[in-house]
């Protein structure tokens, strides 16, 4: 972390400075006192020897040297702090202050959610101020700038043509990649004999986690003015700038993600509107339904349609896969259902006005050929229940077996019929793989229609599936209840089974209970 590094280094500078202050002054004091003492001794000697004229030449020499030392010490004592302030680099305290301010500005940009271009601008300004550069420019890598403007080279006190001339000189004899201080530019190959004004140069890459964002160049007219210390301070800035850029990128990504979430929420609402809310009601049956998608949108669907002559079409389906792709096909399947289940005015008799389930599946298969990707398929079952005949006909296109309670025989069983899923065979031969099955029902019979998200729900040890057997047992225990109660009984048991495990596939469950004959209202 550049910030930590900066803090550590700042601490070190501070420590060195206080060490310098605490050590330099006592040394000066001691030297000063020693010089005074030896001077006094020398003068004492002179006086004791009976006046200046009688003194030996060595004493004179000693006094002279002593006065010289004293002068130097006095100068150091009073001028030393001022001397460092006049050097090219600011005093450590002043430096730390400007460094902190610059870093604060960089950090604030991120907090304000501003652009990466601004981060680069602040970086360039801070870098120039800190090392008191005469000119500077910042080359950004067009692929990784993260800027809004891809060609966003920034210049300080230098025209692009000048910078380009310098770039050309550097390109001719490239510096090894990384940080560089050049203190006599005009003696470098590529610049020999040129009249360009700058002698000192710092090259500093903006290193990110995965790539370089660009390179910062700082220039000074005077030769030999940049040092390693400048580079390490500047690295703190570039480190912070890169951190800011990467934070901005993360923010941008998270915003985009938020938008996607919002759109998924809308998709989820749209899909919810495709699922029938008002279940068909009549006095000869009860229907209860449940559906739950594993993700925001799902691939399960069911629908109903009243047909003339007290008939009801019930469809259930499951698009392979999950999520958005499945949801699109689910909507498509609903459209196919409603368009194929239209009355055919050319039909010769009443019963042919609507396609029988097997015919419907064959037509749906043809309709899906061109819009379903090769590895996708749809399983579906279509039931046409005829109250007047007291029976139903259905076709199973690869969908889960229908669970049934037969009231007269007091028996629960699965219908065992063959039938191929939709979209698996993409030609006319599909029709051979789908059959109708007719069944007469009695009042009190219960039909349970569901998708594999129910029977393949995971629970127990994590790899156990709910299974057809357990579903059958639950119907054996609840068939005498109302459709709604049977559904809830099954769902309670399913939830107990899957407790603590995430739902991994869409779940749909329909319970239809046939009732005793009622006169028409």
């Amino acid at each position, binding site marked *: 972390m550049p910030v930590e590094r900066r803090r550590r280094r700042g601490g070190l500078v501070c420590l060195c400075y206080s060490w310098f202050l605490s050590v330099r002054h006592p040394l000066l004091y001691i030297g000063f006192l020693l010089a005074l003492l030896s001077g006094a001794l020398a003068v004492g000697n002179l006086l004791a020897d009976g006046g200046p004229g009688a003194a030996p030449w060595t004493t004179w020499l000693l006094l002279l040297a002593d006065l010289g030392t004293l002068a130097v010490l006095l100068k150091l004592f009073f001028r030393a702090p001022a001397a460092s302030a006049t050097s090219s680099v600011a005093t450590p305290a002043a430096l730390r202050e400007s460094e902190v301010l610059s870093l604060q500005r960089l950090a604030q940009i991120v907090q304000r959610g501003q652009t990466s271009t601004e981060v680069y601008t602040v970086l360039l300004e801070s870098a120039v101020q800190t090392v008191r550069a005469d000119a500077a420019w910042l080359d950004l890598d067009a692929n990784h700038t993260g800027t809004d403007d891809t060609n966003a080279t920034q210049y300080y006190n230098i025209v692009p043509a000048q910078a380009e001339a310098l770039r050309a000189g550097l390109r001719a004899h490239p510096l090894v990649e990384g940080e560089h201080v050049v203190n006599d530019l005009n003696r470098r190959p590529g610049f020999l004999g040129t009249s360009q004004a700058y002698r000192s140069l710092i090259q500093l890459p903006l290193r990110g986690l995965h790539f370089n964002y660009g390179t910062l160049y700082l220039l000074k007219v005077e030769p030999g003015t940049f040092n390693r210390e400048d580079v390490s301070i500047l690295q703190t800035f570039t480190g912070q700038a890169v951190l800011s850029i990467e934070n901005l990128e993360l923010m941008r990504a998270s915003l985009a993600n938020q938008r996607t979430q919002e759109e998924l929420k809308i998709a989820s609402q749209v899909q919810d509107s495709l699922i029938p809310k008002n279940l068909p009601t009549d006095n000869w049956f009860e229907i209860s339904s449940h559906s739950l998608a594993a993700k925001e949108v799902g691939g399960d669907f069911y629908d109903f349609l009243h047909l003339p002559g007290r008939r009801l079409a019930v469809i259930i389906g499951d698009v*392979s*896969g999950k999520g958005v792709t499945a949801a699109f096909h689910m909507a498509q399947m609903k459209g196919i259902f409603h368009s194929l289940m239209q009355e055919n005015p050319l039909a010769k008799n009443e019963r042919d006005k609507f396609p029988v389930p097997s015919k419907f599946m064959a037509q749906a298969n043809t309709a899906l050929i061109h819009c379903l990707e*090769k*590895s*996708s*398929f749809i*399983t579906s079952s279509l039931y046409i229940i005829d109250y007047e005949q007291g029976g139903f006909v259905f076709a199973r*296109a*690869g*969908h*889960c*077996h229908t669970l049934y309670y037969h009231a007269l025989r007091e028996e629960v069983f699965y219908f065992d019929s*063959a*039938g*191929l*899923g939709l*979209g*698996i*065979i*993409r030609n006319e031969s599909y029709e051979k*793989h789908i059959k109708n099955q007719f069944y007469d029902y009695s009042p009190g019979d219960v039909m349970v229609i569901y998708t*594999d998200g129910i029977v393949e729900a995971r629970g127990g040890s994590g790899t156990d599936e709910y299974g057809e057997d357990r579903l059958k047992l639950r119907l054996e225990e609840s068939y005498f209840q109302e459709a709604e109660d049977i559904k809830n009984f099954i769902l309670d048991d399913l939830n107990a089974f899957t407790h603590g495990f995430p739902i991994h596939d869409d779940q749909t469950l329909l319970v239809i209970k046939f009732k005793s004959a009622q006169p028409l209202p």
Partner: protein
Amino acid sequence: MKVTAQPSADTLTLLLDGELDASSAIVLDTELAKPDILNYRKVLIDCAKLSYISSAGLGVFISHLQRFQDANVKLVFFNMQEKVFNVFEILGLDALMTIVPSLTEAEAA
């Protein structure tokens, strides 16, 4: 999910080991999509260690079914666990694909 290919003269045997779901389906798809697979007369799929197959897993076989048929390459499944066979059967694939109990029948098919 691990897919091991065992080529012989005119037969390629693929051993599936693990769960074949959306994430592992890609591995199998890569194997089945290789152009030179159509040079074999038969492709045998050993399902002894295939413990689970999702709709995405079935989708892989379905998407290559026509291609194999067109090239006259016979696709035979064998050693299938009952649970996995049920998934093939519910979807109606047992009528469309050759699924046999053991290697002997697979080689004879």
